[in-house]
Every structure is written in C-alpha cells, then in structure tokens.
C-alpha cells in the first residue's frame, strides 16, 4: 500500500523524523495562511510529479492560491490530482538520499544512503551509494550508523541528527511493516538542520491486517482493480486485448508468455491464486467480463477439484455474464475430457495444450 506524501510525513513525525511545516488542501479556498514562501505539491501516488509540473513555488498567498488551483486541475499519470500539500520552502544547502528497504538476496533489511540526493537513486553511480544490511534479529547497530555518517561526510552535529533519523527510519520500517521507506531528498538546510524534503512509504500488503488505522486509505486504483482487491484476486490491467485467467501466479505468467510467443498481447492478468475452486473461477470470470477483453483465455491446471466440476462453474459464469466474446479454455487434471465436452457444448473452445490455447486466443483476438 502506497502512501501519499502527506500521509507518509504524518508517519515520519510520529517516529521523530523532521518534516517541513505543511498545509494540506483539497481546494484553493482553503489556502488562507499557508507557510510562505511555499512549495505547492500535487499529492499523487505515481512518479514523475515534478516533470509533469505538479510542483510549484509561491512567494505570496496569491501565488500559492493560483498554484494550488492550477495543480488541483491536473491529471498526472492518468490520475486526477485531488489534494495539494503546501509546505514551507526549505533553504537547501545540500540534498542527501536515505532509504530502508528489503535485500531479498541477503534476507535482511537494507539501509541505503547517498550524498547525491534529490535525483532518482537509480541514476546515482554505485560508488556514491552507501549500502548496509541490517543484521536480522538484532537490528541496527552503532557501527552501521558510524559507517553512514562517514559516507555522508557531514559535520559532527549533523552526523548525530543523521544517525537519529536512520534509527527512526529503521524503527518505522519494522513498526509499520514497510517494504520501502525513502527520504529523497533529505535536505541539509542553510540553518544547519536535516529535514525530509519528500517522503515515500510503501507498506507491505500482507501485513495490513496489523494496521487497521490505514484501512480504507485512498489508493490510485481503477474501479476493477479495487473490486479485485476486495475479492483477494490478483488483477492487473495491461495494454492488450486478451483477458488471461489462470490459477497460480507462475502459470498465469507462463500463459502470458505463451500468448507473447504467438504474437498476442494480454489485456488483463488475472491470477486465481493456487485454487481451482469453481466459485472463485466464477467470480473471476465475472470480473474479467467487466474489463471487456476481446477474447478470454482460461488456463487451469487442476490439483484439488475435478475438472468437470470446474467446467460446470465456467459454463455457469459465462451464462451469468452473458458473454458474447470468444472463450478459450485449457484445462488439465482429473476428468479433463469430460470437462472439455461440457465446455464445447457451451460453445467455448476447449483444448488440451497450452500452446494451442494461446494460438487460438491470438487468432480470435486478431479477427
């Protein structure tokens, strides 16, 4: 779950990470006594806000209102801007980068920092990035903070503030079940302090049950993605015109790979999870119909449920949805032949081989 900047900064404050004074508004009328001079920032979850013109600077109330009003009318990355954050503009001496994330290979949390903040970390050369795994079970240690301070080359007093912020970042990472928490830039102000200029926070979805306070928090999701979310189905809208449903993430991706090999383009990725439960298949089918693909390709490798039972579920679902588009089904498992019969009788294309199914789907989608 991604956090808007202003929400991430609320969390930062709780953990003692300094943030600029700010005012959140949903309309320019609310801009009455903003901090001045101000940075006026669109609150969106997608990247590239700066490039899209979603950040402006204002010296006066009038300018602040005008910028707010302009930004509230924008669309960035396909999403309308609904909230604007007005912050005191920082006097920037230097910009650092600081983040805590997961190192999957090392199976540890990973502290990353760079003296070259303010730009995308991927554009910073490797030797300018300080990386330190956090020892699992025992957590962040003073030697790591010493290394961090050394690498950032700050004067003593600021080094101490940096240590405190890094420790807070780690506590936040653990305490909020984050998968990424990033401060970029971490601003060294002319006044000699450290302030989080921006704030990026992503919580791990699997741990959201431990954080009821964030339930219902706004996310940039399409209507269908939201619906899939609620049903616990992995549903991703892509660029193509073939709706892919399969059971299991690997199998769904492999089905997309097969389409690709045959020159097709998936329009929706829909993973049922490991299940072949007919009820879930039906639900998924109905959801897929709403995405209006040109063809649906259903690929089930049955483990638990008998294939004919799954086939009956598919038949029922296509009837309920009144599907008038071609449906290609590839189903393997116990009673697979009976299943194919059922599906063919219901007017679908039922095949045995995954490649064949992909080819059929690509053909139909192209017609």
């Amino acid at each position, binding site marked *: 779950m991604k956090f808007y900047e202003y929400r991430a900064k609320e969390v930062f404050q709780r953990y003692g990470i300094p943030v600029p004074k700010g005012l959140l508004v949903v309309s320019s009328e609310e801009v009455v006594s903003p901090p001045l001079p101000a940075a006026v920032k669109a609150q969106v979850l997608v990247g590239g806000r700066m490039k899209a013109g979603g950040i402006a600077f204002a010296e006066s109330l009038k300018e602040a209102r005008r910028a707010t009003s302009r930004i509230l009318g924008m669309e960035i990355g396909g999403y309308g801007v609904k909230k604007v954050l007005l912050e005191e503009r920082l006097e920037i001496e230097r910009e650092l980068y600081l983040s805590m994330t*997961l190192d*999957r*290979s090392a*199976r*540890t*949390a990973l502290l990353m920092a760079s003296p070259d903040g303010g730009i995308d*970390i*991927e554009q910073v050369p490797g030797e300018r990035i300080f990386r330190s795994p956090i020892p*699992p*079970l025992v957590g962040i240690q003073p030697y790591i903070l010493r290394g961090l301070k050394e690498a950032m080359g700050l004067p003593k007093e600021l080094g101490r503030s940096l240590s405190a912020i890094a420790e807070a970042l780690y506590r936040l990472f*653990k305490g909020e*079940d984050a*998968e990424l928490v990033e401060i970029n830039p971490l601003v060294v102000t002319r006044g000699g302090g450290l302030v989080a200029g921006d704030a990026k926070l992503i919580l*791990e*979805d*699997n*741990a959201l*049950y*431990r954080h009821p306070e964030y339930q219902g928090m706004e996310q940039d999701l399409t209507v269908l993605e939201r619906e899939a979310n609620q049903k616990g189905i*992995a549903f*991703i809208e*892509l660029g193509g015109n073939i709706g892919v449903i*399969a*059971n*299991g*993430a*690997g*199998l*769904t*991706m*492999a089905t*997309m*790979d*097969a*389409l*690709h*090999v045959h020159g097709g383009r*998936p329009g929706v*990725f829909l*993973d049922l*999870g*490991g299940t072949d439960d007919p009820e879930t298949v039906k639900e998924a089918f109905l959801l897929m119909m709403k995405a209006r693909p040109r063809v649906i390709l259903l690929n089930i*490798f*049955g*483990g*638990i449920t008998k294939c004919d039972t799954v086939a009956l579920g598919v038949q029922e679902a296509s009837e309920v949805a009144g599907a008038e588009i071609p449906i290609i089904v590839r189903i*393997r*498992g*116990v009673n697979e032949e009976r299943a194919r019969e059922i599906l063919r009788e219901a007017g679908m294309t039922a095949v045995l*081989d*995954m*490649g064949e199914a992909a080819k059929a789907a690509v053909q139909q989608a192209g017609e």
Partner: protein
Amino acid sequence: MAVLLEEGSNVVVQGITGHQGRFHTKACLDYGTRIVAGVTPGREGEKVHGVPVYDTVAEAVENGEADTSFFLVPAPFAKDAAIEAIEAGIRLLVLITERIPFHDALDIVSYARFRGTRVIGPNCPGIISPGKSKVGIMPGHIFRRGRVGVISRSGTLTYEIVNAITESGEGQSTCMGIGGDAIIGTNFVEALRLFQEDSETERIVLVGEIGGTAEEEAADYIEREVTTPVVAYVAGQTAPPGRRMGHAGAIISRGRGTAKSKIAAFKEAGVSVAALPSEIPTLLSSL
C-alpha cells in the same frame, strides 16, 4: 537418497484441524507420508484421519518423534507457530502458508538458521520425493519416481511442468517448491546445492520467475559449482515493471528482476533455457 524428504521422515501437520489441514492430511496419508501427529492449540485429544492431535509441537515431537512440519498455520499466527516448531526440534519446516508478512518471514528464516532448522517456503506447494513421501499440497498422482530434480518458485506451474515431464516418460527424484515470496527459507542456490549432492538426481529443472535476483545468483552458482545438467524456465517475460504479478516476490522494481536479465544469466552459465514450459521435456531429453 532423495533431497530432504525420505520415507522415514516423521511429519507433524501444524494446523491439522482446519479445512486445509484435514484435506491435505488425508491426501498425504493416502500418498504414503508418515504423518505421526497434528497440532492445533486447544484441540489436544482429537484425531484427524486417525492422526492424534496435540496442543504443542513439543508433544508431537515427544510422542511421535516428528522431525518435519507440514505447516498450514494461518499467516497471523505463523511466526509464533514456526518458532515453536524450531524450538521443539523440528529439522525441516515446510511453510505452505501464503501472505505471511515478510518482516515475520525474516525472523522465522533467521531464527531457523540460528537453530539449524531447514525452512522451505513460505507460500509454496511443499516438497515431494515421489514414491516416498509428500509434504505439500501438490496433486500426488502427476509425480513419478525418477531422476529429475525440480526446483520452483511456483505452484500450479510446477504441476504443469512435472506433469509434462511424467508424460514424457521421465520421473522425479524430489520436487521442491521454494515459494513465491520475497523472503524464503531456501533459495535457488541453497536448493541447487542439495540437488547437486543428491545421488538420485541426474538432471535438474529450475522454474524461476520475475522479481529479485535469485535466478541470476543461481546461474552464477551453477557455472561455478553445479555439474548436474540444468534446464531452466523463467515465467513473466511480458510482465510490466512495478506490478506485483500474483506472487509477493514477482515484481520488477527499480530495473531489477526482469525475465530478460535472468534468461541471459542462465544462457551465459550454459544452462538450457525453455521459452515455454512445454519445451522442458524436450530440452531434458537432449541433455
């Protein structure tokens, strides 16, 4: 000798009284797995398909000499139950459970290493040594005893591939689903080491997917250490960046974790790479 799981493995089912627990206990018993005990706190004294249920793993170890856990405990209780199992002396912990927060998984796999317990998963179908024992939720009938080792991040895709291998006339020594999460107890490199050392495994099939760099590390390891021939497939060649493709671990982020990079690494290491799962049996027989 198979990998990690043998006829003699004594299995405790953690979470045996749940719907999944009952169902898969039956399926494993039918397969021939030696299930000696089940655990569900507060349900001591019950039986599930004839298997005695205890309140604690320690009792399952004491009374049933359990050494392997078939772990089906729901995610919110997983860390507690996993540490209980490790402390009770379980040697092989097969975490089937999906959606365990990775902060918990980190603690579990670190603590297990501290105590010398092997963890497979989480979010995996389990492990099977065909004809010997099955500790997992995979359909047993598609497997056949033989000499191909299978290591996979996937569930049903593994069944798909195993089925194709079996239909081509080959059997499997051990099939290990290592799990689709970002943090897993046994990664490709560690699994490869086990299969390389296994006398029953003559060829290895590795099923990867987008996300992370485990496949790149596996390729590097294969080049340096693995003499057993390997066939690989990497799912997600068309996956867009920044989207989680079903598995928690299947995400291309910050330019890392693309199928392209993984496939290139395998090819560079001299590994045969299948473009689609269906090509695997052919590549296997050409080794």
